[in-house]
């Protein structure tokens, strides 16, 4: 598969009154053509900052201190503002979390959708409006032609998010970045929007980077998953590898803290404590303080990535050949069994 985006050793710092925040600490990942990569993690883990860096939308006090972001082989970080403007909304576009605030309330929606076409290409007003109507219809706004002159407040939340998606896809972007696009929506509407994104992906052949903290959504939409914690990717793999064969205790914690509909135990599993401050990131593994499986070495040295399979890597010392064998938490053991059923041969090798 061709790699459309490659992020290598990215580091981003923010200068604040309190000191320098190391928001992204050596992050690398890639994105293949046509695939959906989900990035999961809690607030402050650096997932949004990563995407904003790709879009060239870092706040003024943010600085890339190391790394490269190759889009079709060319480093985005070296692009001028003019080149970035040509790229944003055209080659790479973004869907934001809140459909209530990402549309202009004083502009008819037809104009807002058509605007993107007019900015990036030499299109007549009439042709742009026709195209806007076609794309709005494509994302499920019924009778779009008659509604081009309507304002955002005349649409419901789910419809507004469809309009935002129409703006994002009208130029057939090669990469679509979705930052929690369904978090503000009801479950029924969320299901419709996710279905729409999947459908559009095949229609316009785009790659999607999907940020969310909802593992249920990830399971439904992602081909591959990267888990972030305290400014680093700590585990990545295919969706099955992450959900059924997770290796990092933080990924375990996330999977355990979701009540499945069968959960009936007295207490939910909660990850104790809160993430560390990135003003002074811990010397060793950033998750060590909250990790019941932490080893001595976790407090002293950051774990490197250990290879689980060609597509699956995890940064935990538990994978070191000298690490003690640990007993898996029940929920993770249950998932491991499903994994073994799916891959009878490979998992035997691992034993």
């Amino acid at each position, binding site marked *: 598969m061709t790699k459309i985006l490659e992020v290598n050793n990215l580091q981003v710092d923010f200068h604040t009154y309190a000191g320098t925040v190391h928001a992204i600490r050596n992050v690398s990942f890639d994105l293949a053509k046509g695939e959906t990569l989900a990035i999961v993690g809690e607030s402050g883990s650096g997932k949004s900052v990563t995407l904003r860096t790709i879009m060239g939308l870092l706040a003024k006090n943010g600085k890339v201190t190391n790394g490269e972001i190759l889009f079709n082989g060319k480093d985005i970080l070296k692009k001028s503002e003019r080149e970035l403007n040509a790229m944003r909304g055209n080659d790479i576009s973004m869907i934001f979390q809140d459909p209530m605030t990402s549309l202009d309330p004083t502009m008819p929606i037809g104009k807002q959708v058509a605007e993107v076409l007019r900015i990036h290409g030499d299109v007549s007003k009439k042709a742009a409006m026709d195209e806007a109507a076609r794309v709005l219809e494509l994302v499920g706004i019924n009778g779009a032609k008659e509604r081009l002159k309507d304002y955002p407040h005349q649409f419901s939340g789910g419809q507004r998010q469809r309009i935002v998606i129409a703006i994002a896809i009208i130029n057939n972007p090669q990469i679509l970045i979705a930052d929690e696009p369904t978090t503000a929506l*009801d479950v029924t509407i969320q*299901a419709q929007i996710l279905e729409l994104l999947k459908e559009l992906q095949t229609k316009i052949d785009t790659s999607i980077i999907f940020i969310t903290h909802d593992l249920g*959504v990830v399971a439904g939409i992602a081909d591959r998953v990267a888990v972030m914690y305290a400014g680093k990717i700590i585990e990545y793999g295919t969706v099955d590898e992450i*959900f059924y064969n997770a290796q990092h205790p933080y990924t375990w914690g*996330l999977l355990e803290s979701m009540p499945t509909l069968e959960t009936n135990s*007295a*207490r939910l599993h*909660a990850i104790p404590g809160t993430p560390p401050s990135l003003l002074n990131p811990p010397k060793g593994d950033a998750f060590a303080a909250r990790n019941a499986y932490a080893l001595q070495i976790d407090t002293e040295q950051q774990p490197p990535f250990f290879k689980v399979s060609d597509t699956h890597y995890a940064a935990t010392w538990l994978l070191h050949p000298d690490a003690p064998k640990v007993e898996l938490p029940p929920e993770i053991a249950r998932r491991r069994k499903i994994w073994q059923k799916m891959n009878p041969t490979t998992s035997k090798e691992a034993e």
Partner: protein
Amino acid sequence: MADEKKEVLVSVRGLEQYFNLGKKDEVRAIQDINFDIYRGETLGLVGESGSGKTTTGRAIIRLYKPTAGEINFEGKDIAKLKNGSKEMQEFRREVQMIFQDPYASLNPRMKIKDIIAEGIDINHLAKDDADRDAQVANLLQLVGLNPDHASRYPHEFSGGQRQRIGIARALAVQPQFIIADEPISALDVSIQAQVVNLLKEIQEKRDLTYLFIAHDLSMVKYISDRIAVMHYGRLVELSTSDEVYNHPLHPYTKSLLSAIPVPDPETERLRKPVPYDASIEEDGQDRSMVEITPGHFVYAAKGEIEGYKAAAAAYNK
């Protein structure tokens, strides 16, 4: 929730809440709401935005004056109490609320000990300053915060910690009944579990009754003894959480359940969303809550009862 002693704490009958009554833009936010909440249980209230779940919660705590209907709390109808009356003040002490947004619901210019003690002060529940401080320290400990931090301001706390402060404030006046309106939806997954566990723990310690309003159905299923489903301002289904999840009867409940994302790729690949046609609610037929199987209520018209009964029987085969 023990079945043997089912004492009704809150009973809602025919509750209606209209806004802009008699004007052109009249909104019938909730209509024909009937349910009971038993002492010591958690009733989950679910539905999409605009379904009226928050309005129901706010009407019960009398943040609004209900248009019609009864709200019986410990046998007394509080729907018609006047603001400022002695009975109202007593009621307000018995019932407290935890809000959704831990950032907006704490006054940024007050120290957290003053935020927590506001109810104590208004109701004169502290003998002197030392007693007040001791009560605040106790509450902070109860919700898992450091009592030494009582003099700090809200901005010094994280979202999860702020929600703990909101819980401490609600507990300060020793209420019997707490309405929690989406208390965890603004929090991260790993923190959500902490707060839900805390709510359960406190419920056991203090024998509290909860009305838990949320749209995250998997969390609601986990925390609730019974679940009420709302749609278009009406209650459409009410039963134990296992019944609602495993044997849903109303088509809206079925559709809602089919939309829940499950953290399991295999299940997700097989998931078929069930569409819901809301027009069946608007065919003009008279509907009311009918007990289809013991304890399982569905909002149904006369002609629909048999169909629901057959569906319920089919589940039990």
